[in-house]
């Protein structure tokens, strides 16, 4: 989500699953919704069947999404930016853009500093030694009033719109074909269908997933998509949006709740050691509007922050101690999971706790991960099922070759209840919070995650109280005043998430608007004086005074637009389509009857959804629809908010069969973080001429379902998909066992020789690609296989640190023996 945030203001799926039925064009790229999200994909088939929508799929493989598409275009893994920039160029050069939307709802009109430069793929401010940019020159030009300067005619050569035209001009259809291997006519058909929605009449939705994220330039792939949607005016309208299809059931909720190295619930920031005081932390986050009258909602940051501190530290959070700010750990850098395993591999880590996580499978470069785990003093696996990680020390022949006697790690495998044996709220990909009720009793001795962690926490605090120890004060400062400290109830935790009034809250006239102890109805009620708590402002209201909104099950849909406003609760403030004020023109009228959604009715903003806007601000106040952004508008130009540039640039993967044909000087993402170990583990196209890409099969869910009988039956064994041409070249027979190896490791599997993969012509040279499903391992009911990440590299994206799983180099050879 490291690019949707900078562009729109919030890093989450913009629309909802059911809203997809309102689309006229559906574009699936960098994802495979039919296989990864079949029941969400239903709404694609619905749009096709009932609305005559067109579906186009751009993917290296003709996959199961493509099998029901109206148009399929092949693309070489890792070349998405070239393709998407080609589309941007097509829209700009053919003037196929939604002018009024772009002028008023994006920062196209903003003037950029004169000292900003771009040449040979690098933006101004690059420091090669640090592999990073000084982003100061990427800022707007500001006037004496302190506001950014704009040219609403979009003519100024330094305005974002003109810079864009210049920046993308070189991405012609011919270049796209040369770089991405997409035949020109197939590319043009995509561009043309996109253009057909660049008006208020028709809508296009873009559905993507890890196919765009898992690249060393993943965030910029998604940036391109966001820009295309802004040029077409497809954000904030029904059937539009950039829909990031999340993986795990509650990955959205767990991300919201901030279990990420630098996060605090609700997208607040964990302090860094450069921020010794609460003031110094908040001071950097005032979010003053950059143009007049803008909402710039993050101005309320400090209220949310203090409310969080009050929940984390309870009575121990006082004005005097900056609400316990200093009890929080402070960052000296970020510790994402890749860094985590690099440190572990260096022997710098003592213990690892895995909660429903199977890192031996999930983390790139399995051999490195296995060595890293072997260096731990202890490993705890909390999971309903046995994971390959929990048994990393066990020898499984070629599939997990290790000598248990040499592994000194203490390993604990704790039984956790399955989804059916517990209750709680879960947030789906489109921010919809829903409830699940408990259906069965815990399996044998299993316990819920909360019970296990409560037990651990209480034990450790007792030990510190008894024997003392380092960091005792910070540990005991945490508020743990649950009725039963060993069993915090779901209700108690939900109240903490929602927040409540700690003292009577009074309005300006001194009237009590919220009595002490009452749960808050909206985050608007939060205060920075310690009179409210609530650890996650974006969820506030989901358990408000009226009750548990997550449990709402009224599936009426009065508008017929798939809004379902009374089903569950969609953060923020139960909005189903984000930035929905943009569904109306600057005067507050719908862009078209066909796309009518939210509009100004004279008194207020009304429509089937909750306005993502202050409901009573009239259009003439010219308040932008992107209320989280200090500009009030969305960002075609992201200023310094992304590490690798204000505009996307074509960058090749770190392992690529060809050099960068657009900017020969660029070797991979110039600011991607690369650890020494991983840099040395890169292969060249000389030894590894074939592109490898990994993906999920619809019959399986990541590394879970290999332990699930029915799914093991549906896809029993690891295989490699390859073109008939490659098979012929290598003398590989259909169904024969083959060996695939990269600079980092090898795997063996059956060959699925198919017409659905075709060799690419890249700059005149033939490039083969193989598909590698990731769902197989050495634990479970499927046939044993080496983890697919034995092949992959840990080099990750410069913004999200997401590893480059989707494009790397391998080689393939047949293994003698009987063909299945």
């Amino acid at each position: 989500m490291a690019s949707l945030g900078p562009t729109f203001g919030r890093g989450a799926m913009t629309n909802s699953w059911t809203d997809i039925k309102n689309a006229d064009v559906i574009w699936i790229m960098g994802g495979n919704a039919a296989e990864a999200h079949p029941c969400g994909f239903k709404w694609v088939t619905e749009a096709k069947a009932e609305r005559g929508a067109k579906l186009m799929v751009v993917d290296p493989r003709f996959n199961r999404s493509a099998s029901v598409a109206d148009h399929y275009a092949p693309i070489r893994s890792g070349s998405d930016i070239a393709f998407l920039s080609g589309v941007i160029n097509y829209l700009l050069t053919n003037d196929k853009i939604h002018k009024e939307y772009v002028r008023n709802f994006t920062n196209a009109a903003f003037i950029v500093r004169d000292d900003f430069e771009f040449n040979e793929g690098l933006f101004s401010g690059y420091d090669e030694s640090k592999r990073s940019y000084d982003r100061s020159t990427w800022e707007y030009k500001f006037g004496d009033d302190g506001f950014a300067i704009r040219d609403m005619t979009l003519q100024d050569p330094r305005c974002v719109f003109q810079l864009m035209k210049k920046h993308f001009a070189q991405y012609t259809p011919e270049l796209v074909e040369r770089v991405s291997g997409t035949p020109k006519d197939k590319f043009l058909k995509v561009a043309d269908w996109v253009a057909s929605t660049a008006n208020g009449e028709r809508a296009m939705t873009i559905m993507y997933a890890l196919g765009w994220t898992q690249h060393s330039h993943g965030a910029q792939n998604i940036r391109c998509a966001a820009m295309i949607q802004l040029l077409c005016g497809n954000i904030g309208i029904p059937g539009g949006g950039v829909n990031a299809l999340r993986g795990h059931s509650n990955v959205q909720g767990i991300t919201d709740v901030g279990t990420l190295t630098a996060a605090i619930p609700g997208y607040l920031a964990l302090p860094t050691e450069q921020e010794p005081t609460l003031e110094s932390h908040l001071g950097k986050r005032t979010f003053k509007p950059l143009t007049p009258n803008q909402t710039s909602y993050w101005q309320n940051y400090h209220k949310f922050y203090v409310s969080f501190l009050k929940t984390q530290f309870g009575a121990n959070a006082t004005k005097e101690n900056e609400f316990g700010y200093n009890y929080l750990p402070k960052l000296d850098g970020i510790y994402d999971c890749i860094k985590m395993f690099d440190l572990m591999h260096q022997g710098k880590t003592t213990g690892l706790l895995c909660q429903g996580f199977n890192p031996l499978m999930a983390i790139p470069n399995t051999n490195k991960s296995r060595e890293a785990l072997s260096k731990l003093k202890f490993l705890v696996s909390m999971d309903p099922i046995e994971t390959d990680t929990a048994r990393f020390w066990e020898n499984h022949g070629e599939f997990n070759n290790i000598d248990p006697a040499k592994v000194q790690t203490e390993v604990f495998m704790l039984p956790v209840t399955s989804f059916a044996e517990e209750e709680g709220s879960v947030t789906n990909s489109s921010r919809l919070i829903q409830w699940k009720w408990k259906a069965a009793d815990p399996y044998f001795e299993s316990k819920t995650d909360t019970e296990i962690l409560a037990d651990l926490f209480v034990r450790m605090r007792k030990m510190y109280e008894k024997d003392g120890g380092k960091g005792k004060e910070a540990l005991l400062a945490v508020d743990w005043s649950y009725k039963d400290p060993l069993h915090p109830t779901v209700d108690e935790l939900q109240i903490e998430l929602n927040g409540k009034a700690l003292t009577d809250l009074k309005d300006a006239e001194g009237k009590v608007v919220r009595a002490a102890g009452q749960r808050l109805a909206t985050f608007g009620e939060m205060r920075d004086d310690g009179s409210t708590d609530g650890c996650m402002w974006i969820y506030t209201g989901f358990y408000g005074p009226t009750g548990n909104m997550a449990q709402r099950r009224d599936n009426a849909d009065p508008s017929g637009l798939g809004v379902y406003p009374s089903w569950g609760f969609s953060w923020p403030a139960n909005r189903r389509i984000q930035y929905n004020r943009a569904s109306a023109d600057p005067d507050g009228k719908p862009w078209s009857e066909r796309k009518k959604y939210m509009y100004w009715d004279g008194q207020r903003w009304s429509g089937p959804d909750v306005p993502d806007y202050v409901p009573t601000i009239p259009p003439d106040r010219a308040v932008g629809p992107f209320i989280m952004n200090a500009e009030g508008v969305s960002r075609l130009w992201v200023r310094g908010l992304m590490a690798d540039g204000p505009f996307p640039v074509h960058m090749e993967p770190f392992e690529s069969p060809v050099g960068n044909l657009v900017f020969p000087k660029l070797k991979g993402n110039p600011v991607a973080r690369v650890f020494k170990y991983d840099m040395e583990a890169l292969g060249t196209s000389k030894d590894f001429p074939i592109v490898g890409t990994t993906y999920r099969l619809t019959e399986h869910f990541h590394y879970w379902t290999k332990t699930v009988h029915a799914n093991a039956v549906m896809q029993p064994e690891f295989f490699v998909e390859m073109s008939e041409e490659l098979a012929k070249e290598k003398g590989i027979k259909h169904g024969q066992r083959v060996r695939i190896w990269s600079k980092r490791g090898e795997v063996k599997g059956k060959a699925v020789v198919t017409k659905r993969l075709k060799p690419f012509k890249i700059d005149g040279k033939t490039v083969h690609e193989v598909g590698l499903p990731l769902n197989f391992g050495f634990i479970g009911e499927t046939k044993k296989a080496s983890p697919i990440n034995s092949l992959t590299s840990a080099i990750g994206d410069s913004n999200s640190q997401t590893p480059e799983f989707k494009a790397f180099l391998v080689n393939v050879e047949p293994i003698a023996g009987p063909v299945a």
Partner: protein
Amino acid sequence: MFTPVPNPTTNPVAAKFGQQDLIRRSASSVTAPAKRQTEVAKLIDVSKCIGCKACQVACLEWNNLTEEVGVNVGVYDNPHDLTANTWTLMRYTEYENAESGNLEWLIRKDGCMHCEDPGCLKACPAPGAIVQYSNGIVDFDHDKCIGCGYCIKGCPFNIPRISQVDQKAYKCSLCSDRLAVGQGPACAKACPTQAIVFGTKDEMKQWADHRIKDLKSRGFKNAGLYDPPGVGGTHVMYVLQHADKPQIYAGLPNNPSISPLVEVWKGVTKYVGLAAIGAFAAFGFLHHAVAGANRVTAEDEKNAERLTEGQR
């Protein structure tokens, strides 16, 4: 969106149909019910199918079937064929459309078609082992099945399979137990894209027209419904993008009908055979009555003695 059947209840419900609704019964006759129930049908829209196999899993789970974990043989089809436990199966075909120049991945859900004129039932020698309800369901009664495999020979679609465990024949029951309480088949309920829908046969034909219109608008000029008359129509129908050539869908028969061999075997042979046996027996009696026994006479014995005298 084809409106789904509401959620099932856990309260006991009286069966909506039963013995009294049988219209055919293998190797025996039934008194047809006064009024035939509305015919039901399952419509499988190949053009909407994403080959996710949810139907396969739903079928296993609902019917408490346990299939073995197999191997990959270079295709997505798993298991590789229908078995006594796999009553439905996705069959994948990579089809290069010469006209459009496009690759098409045709994915067909295979399984019992519930023929109006069921070959399995016709071939079955065990009374009541195969029955047909007036709503169109063709169902197997495993207590009566003798495992002879005649149903396999009778089926024009190669559907029934004999279990290696109990040597009885198995196939899709159209979830007769779910239908009996007003639910649809488990596969239809699970199907994420509604490529499988279930309702009355008329509704299904109507819905198919609606789908075929859409397909024609997308350039599939030969899109159509597969409801083969050769078997009197089926209660499982397909919407095909290329209804003019069913065989490209993993060998779906172009114009299926019960094999003439089976017709002859179960028809004329049966009667002629019994007649012949009867005739021969009858001839025996007749001849004996007319010509009488062929007895050895004293004369014959004498001749024999005379002949052997020299021996003494």
